[in-house]
């Protein structure tokens, strides 16, 4: 039981890293990785939202979609739920925790459109392993988000360093970021087979 969850977490963080292996959530990965502190803020926000949305979508899936045979509405319902959820969270954060809002606030709207959040929800809903298991789905979403945050933090620290390199004009900006992401993804392939 414990071993199962440890392997699940290792798999989601290192082996099937959302960004570097599944290529999900690339827009915040490229957009919010220019500075380490923003990357950490974004990572935190993603972890927070993904746990929440993973839990809620798994609930919706189990008790609404599957029960009434509405699986074909999955994508659209999940989008709706996640978007609404993030909106509410943002407003509540701003109201009740100014510090957390300034730390996460600006990233929350970005997350609404983050395919990683939707991706994790859909993976949980479709893969046999997670079907109907709300706790396991939530753990998976958490681990995936940690993987995302890890990739983001690694990447942003490298990018901060790249600011001090004389990168050729044509490679500046997203180009060099993608090359770097590619090399990082190559490096992460080394973890293949871990936990199996």
């Amino acid at each position, binding site marked *: 039981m414990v071993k199962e969850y440890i392997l699940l977490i290792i798999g989601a963080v290192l082996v099937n890293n959302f960004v570097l292996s599944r290529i999900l959530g690339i827009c915040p990965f490229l957009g919010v990785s220019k500075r380490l502190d923003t990357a950490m803020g974004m990572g935190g926000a993603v972890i927070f939202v993904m746990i929440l949305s993973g839990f809620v979508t798994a609930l919706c899936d189990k008790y609404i979609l599957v029960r009434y045979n509405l699986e074909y509405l999955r994508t659209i319902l999940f989008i*709706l739920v996640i978007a609404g959820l993030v909106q509410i969270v943002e407003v509540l954060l701003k109201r009740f925790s100014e510090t957390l809002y300034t730390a996460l606030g600006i990233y929350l709207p970005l997350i609404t459109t983050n395919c990683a959040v939707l991706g994790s929800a859909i993976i949980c809903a479709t893969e046999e392993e997670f079907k109907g298991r709300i706790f396991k789905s939530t753990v998976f979403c958490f681990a995936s988000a940690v993987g995302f945050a890890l990739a983001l933090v690694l990447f942003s620290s490298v990018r901060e360093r790249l600011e001090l390199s004389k990168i050729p004009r044509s490679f500046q900006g997203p180009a060099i970021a993608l090359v770097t992401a590619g090399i990082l993804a190559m490096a992460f392939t080394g973890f293949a087979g871990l936990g199996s």
Partner: protein
Amino acid sequence: MIDIVMMTGTGVLLGLAIGLVVRYFGVPVNPLVESLNELMPGANCGGCGLAGCSDYANAMATGRAKPGLCPVMSAEAVAKCCELLGVESDTTEPKIAVVCCSGDDDHAAKQAFYNGVNDCLNAMLVAGGSKGCTYGCLGLGSCARACPFGAIEMLPNHLAKIHADLCTGCGKCYMACPRNVIKLVPRSAAKVHVYCNSPKKAPIKRTVCKAACIGCRKCAKTAGEGQIIMNGYLASINYDNPPAEGIVEVCPTKCLRKAD
């Protein structure tokens, strides 16, 4: 049927929830800041003295700064800002930067070979750089790198040149120049300039630069009253009352020239 009901139901529920949350927990945002932000040029040059355009918009909305500090904004935009803020418009005369030096490699004597960081401030701190004149352009292009609009070109013979059509008078180059060779002058009066910055006596200047103002006062005598002022051995234009363009004919060293 159930699918439609479910989707609609979820939508309505979420909509209601968001509406209620915003109604009871929402924090109002200042719409003024956003409309001010739209009027900003977005170059984030910092010419207003604040950290970029959105900071300036914020500062205006909260009364920390006045409209019209931005050197780049058009007059209409400034007027609009004033309208939004409900204050009277106060237009500033648009400015332009001038490099007051003619000491390129052909004219200025080379004293030493500077070896080090390619930056004017650095060069000045090391024995005063490679040119002999301690008042002139060091020619390493710090101003050109500071210009957010690409208006400064470094001539191959180590002199900065300002392209008037691109210059917005933001003053970044003025801040970047360690020798204060660059001056900000009113755009409308920028017809002729004295391209020399050295207040030294003529013989000293002549040994280090062939194009220096030698303080002969010919221009000051020819021009109208108060149009050219002598600062010691250096002629300077009174930009409140600029001389006619024809005045450049009298200058023996051609350091008094039409704006280029």
